[in-house]
């Protein structure tokens, strides 16, 4: 599916976007329509059989062939309807599944910046409710429309074949009804779009009140949360009611028009029968075909609701499906040694500069600390080194080559990152730690020992197979941080980036872990964002970051002499520094 016509064109028509989606399933859909046509086509013949029976009634030998014809028609209808429903279900579910896979694939290749800005709640609605609407189009609308059209056309043909004058008077109802559908559908589409946006908002409110459950209970703010929900919910209700107001006209108009048609048959047809230009049997058949005609028209009326909703949904999905696929451009597979160089790097978050003119070098095997006040940009710097964000200016080089030139798998087998906020998956501890594909049993065991997790895991009845709950709610803050560290170490990295790692562990454990890292991962290049000067006195280099700029670099002793900012930080920790474990 190379070039695209874009969703802008589809706004004018009723669903060409969806027909593009269905092309791969052509075969199944034709089969589906075929089954529907046969079963409905035979349905058309039934009134003819009845008419034949009535007209020929004087001779009752007609009974047996009549019975056979009718019965066989009924059985064929049964079989075909049955198969039709199976194919219908299969096709619609398959389209839904494939659509979801495509969406997920597209989302999975996006940058972190996109995901963060794209509102995960909207993506959730896309993957669930919007796909469902498209599915309903297939499972309900296609067959209904196809078979209804056939019945309508077939019934019209039958009507014309019996008495063209009467038929002409009746058939005019079809375009009238068509016009009404078109009008209503056009008006209702924007409302459906807004309806889905409100669902996005509902998702977001619910999600926040789940994630913030502890806070809400500690502040007793259940009422304000409810009010937030109420606003979104009320809007959803009002949109639902306005859609209802439009659609409530549809069926009455159809039925009314149909009634008028029936009355026309009575008056005009009755006139013809009185004038002997039409038989009673034909008259009865006319009535039968009319009732046959009405039911599918009403069905299409119900379907217009589904069609409108699914077209709106597909429009939303198109924006995700048409996202650019970020291609892997890096090719270098040489192992990284750990020499890092940043030159004139600047990073903007929106309009705001978070890093300005950053220049520094890190040597392989060295330990570098980054220290600075809150919101200095320390985390953003680490994000840069780990490829989560891109610089707006300047270059980030590893071993003299641009970070983007490295093959991703190669890069991440050498660079590991421990984030500040704990991210735990709802899987076993083993799967959480061995998250990267490259983890072996030995590297796993080594990582667990280094992160001082062995006793904790051994104390659990199911050990490594213990399932951790979503967001790690059954773990303490320090346990989560240690699991994150183990996860990073398990890839046996050459470069380890720690973001304020020791904030959540006690000093005793901290010393043990740092010693473990030096022992089990010799030659590792360490970059650690930290607040504690005592931990970094022995580091090879300390970088002082303030408001996105480097204000000083050097070893501890140099900085104590040259950097007033550094001294200020040191003094604020002074009284307890000598008590800190070395």
């Amino acid at each position, binding site marked *: 599916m190379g070039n695209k016509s874009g969703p802008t064109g589809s706004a004018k028509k009723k669903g060409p976007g969806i027909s593009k989606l269905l092309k791969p399933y052509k075969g199944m859909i034709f089969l589906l329509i075929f089954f529907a046509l046969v079963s409905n086509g035979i349905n058309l013949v*039934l009134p003819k059989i*009845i008419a034949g029976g009535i007209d020929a009634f004087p001779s009752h030998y007609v*009974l047996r062939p*009549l019975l056979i014809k*009718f019965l066989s028609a009924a059985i064929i209808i049964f079989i075909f309807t049955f198969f039709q429903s199976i194919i219908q*279900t299969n096709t619609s*579910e398959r389209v839904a*599944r494939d659509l979801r*896979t495509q969406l*997920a694939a597209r989302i999975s290749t996006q940058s972190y910046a996109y995901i963060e800005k794209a509102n995960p709640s909207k993506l*959730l609605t896309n993957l*669930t409710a919007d796909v469902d609407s498209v599915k309903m189009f297939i499972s309900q609308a296609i067959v209904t429309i196809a078979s209804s059209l056939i019945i309508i056309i077939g019934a019209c043909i039958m009507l014309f074949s019996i008495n063209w004058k009467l038929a002409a008077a009746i058939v005019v109802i079809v375009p009238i009804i068509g016009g009404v559908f078109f009008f209503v559908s056009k008006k209702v589409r924007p409302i459906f779009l807004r309806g889905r946006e409100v669902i996005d908002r*509902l998702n977001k409110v619910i999600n*926040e009140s*789940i994630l*913030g459950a*502890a806070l809400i209970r500690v502040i007793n*703010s*259940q009422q304000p949360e*409810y009010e937030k*929900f109420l606003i979104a*919910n*009320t809007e959803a209700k009002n949109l639902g*009611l306005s859609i209802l*107001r439009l659609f409530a006209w549809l069926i009455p108009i159809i039925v009314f028009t149909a009634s008028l048609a*029936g*009355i026309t048959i*009575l008056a005009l047809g*009755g*006139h013809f029968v*009185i004038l002997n230009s039409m038989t*009673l049997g034909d008259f*009865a058949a006319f009535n*039968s075909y009319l009732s046959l005609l009405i039911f599918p028209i009403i069905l299409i009326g*119900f379907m217009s609701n589904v069609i409108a909703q699914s077209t709106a949904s597909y429009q939303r999905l198109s924006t995700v499906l048409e996202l650019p696929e970020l291609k892997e451009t890096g090719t270098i597979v040489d192992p990284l040694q750990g020499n890092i160089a940043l030159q004139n790097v600047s990073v903007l*978050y929106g309009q*705001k500069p978070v890093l300005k003119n950053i220049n520094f070098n890190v040597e392989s095997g060295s330990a570098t600390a980054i220290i*600075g006040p*809150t919101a200095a940009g320390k*985390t953003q710097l680490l994000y840069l080194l780990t*490829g*989560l964000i891109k610089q707006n200016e300047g270059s980030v080089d590893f071993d003299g080559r641009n970070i983007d030139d490295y093959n991703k798998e190669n*890069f991440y087998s050498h660079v590991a990152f421990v984030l500040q906020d704990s991210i735990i*998956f709802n899987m076993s501890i083993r799967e959480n730690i061995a998250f990267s*594909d490259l983890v072996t049993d030995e590297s796993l065991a080594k990582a667990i020992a280094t992160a001082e997790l062995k006793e904790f895991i051994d104390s659990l009845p199911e050990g490594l197979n213990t399932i951790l709950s979503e967001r790690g709610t*059954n773990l*303490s803050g*320090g346990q989560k941080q240690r699991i994150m560290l183990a996860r990073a170490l398990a890839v046996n990295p050459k470069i380890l980036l720690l973001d*304020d790692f020791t*904030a*959540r*562990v*006690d000093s*005793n454990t901290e010393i043990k872990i740092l010693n473990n890292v030096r022992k089990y991962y010799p030659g590792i290049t360490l970059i650690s964002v930290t*607040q504690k000067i005592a931990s970094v006195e022995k580091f090879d280099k300390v970088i002082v970051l303030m408001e996105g700029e480097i204000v000083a670099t050097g070893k501890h002793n140099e900085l104590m002499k040259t950097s007033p900012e550094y001294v200020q*930080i040191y003094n*604020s920790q002074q*009284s307890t520094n000598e*008590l800190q*474990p070395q």
Partner: protein
Amino acid sequence: MNYNLNDISAHQQKASTLSILRKLMLLIKDERRNLLLALLAILTNSGLNLLNPFIIGYTIDKYVVHKNYHGVLMNAGLLVCMAFIAFGSSYMQTRMMGGVGQRMLFKLRNAVFNKLQELPVAFFNQNKAGDLISRINNDTDKINLFFSQSLMQFIGTIATMIGAGIFLLAINFRLGVATLFPGIMIFIFTKATSKWVKRKNAASLKSTGGLSAEIQESLNNFKVIIAFNRRDYFRKRFEEANEINYVAAKAAGISNNVFMPVYGFFASMGQLIVLTIGIYLISTGRFSIGLLVSYLSYSTNFYNPLRQLAALWTNFQVAMAGSDRISHILNMETNLPVTEDNRQEKIAALLEFRNVHFGYEGGKEILHNINFALEQGKTYALVGPTGGGKTTTASLLARLYDPLSGEVLLNGRDIRTYESGERTKKIGFILQEPFLFTGTVRDNILYGNEKFTGFSKAQLEEVIKNANLKSLLLIFENGLDTLINSGGESISLGQKQLIAFMRAVLRNPDLLILDEATANIDTITEKILQDILNKLPKETTRVIIAHRLNTIKNADEIYFVNAGEVIRAGSFDHAVNMLLQEKRAS
């Protein structure tokens, strides 16, 4: 208490179906007038629909056969009037019932969301966010679909069928019974298969919840997915949930479509019976053509709706499956009720733990026989190795959980006897992981604080100055108006902790608990925070949990928490010693 929604016992399952129907009935109680109007409209509509073929048949027999055109025109006029009335009643029917459905959906969603707010933190620890979202948005909508679209068709259909059935029996009893016989077969078939259909739908809805949960978790954890080069993890996990959903939805779809062909077949049988027996009766002179034509119409009027019923019954099963999932939430009760106990002790301590034992649901005991007392106005520190039980102890202080045994006394009274509003005003808790809502800094620091609603910017700045918080606002680029995206990267973790700090201080509680609340804040800014804490009213009791020694340096008393035991550490030096030497148990 077991709050896991996917772990409901069979007994609870049964109780839930009845209770949800009762709740649904309650929800539409105020809609009685609308329902009555809708019912009236439906009956009018069905009545008119039934009368139609009768009049046509009568016209044929009386006027067409006898070549009386004037009679035909008269009856045609009558039918036109009926058509107009039917137009009005049909519109009313849809408007009324649709309105009932939308309002019921609205109330149902509110009810479920409210119930979630009543339940304790333990509930959220045992269930997945995506699954809960799916229940509130998706499953409620299934109930709505039935109520707004299917129910009125349901009633209309039944009404039409009953009417048609009456006519069939009235015109010719024997023929009528024979005609209705296939209907009975349909009834038996439906009864036999409905339970199976509902089960399949329940499984399908559950798999949708699972899919939702998977998406939710992966999107929230995307940073790690990228940083560990596991974009394929997202695709893989999603595929698994997608496949489960595919299988379950297919099974449900097929089961839902089982009614249609069967109903269609028996409907044809009904028509056949009318035709053959009718013709036979006509040939023996006991029936007329006109009657046969209207009889055919009536049997069509009986069986066509019956075919519609097939689709409606399906929607009903889906709605029932959805309402089961809702009722599981609505039936949950909080395990932290406000109890009655007028015992009031005269103790000096603000808050006291007596023989408290605690463990999380399904886990082993974490806190063993904790005893300590916090006096008003003092600063306490809780230190200890990671995983020792500090946050757990703090959670019990704020009544996020109740102890398994033992008591927690606030101002001499069992903490469980306090209304949550009163308790949360007295006890402030800064959580370890700060949570912010999408909005401005101002929105967040005033969150849940009714004292300052409606304050102008100037008034607010005065309040902030008095609380010594002004310097902290400078760390935010737009001060109070800085925009924050919950879960986003617009501000750093340290800044989030600052906001959480300001939020708690502005509430001016009697007891302020800081659970590693400054862990990611630099030490210089932390000094400002220490200052602010020191300037809090003298009577404020402070409990500080921290790993940084200079954070706890000036505490009046230090408690050492390890392996679920809380021991007085005496002096600061002694505490440091314990930290260095005591073995970490987790």
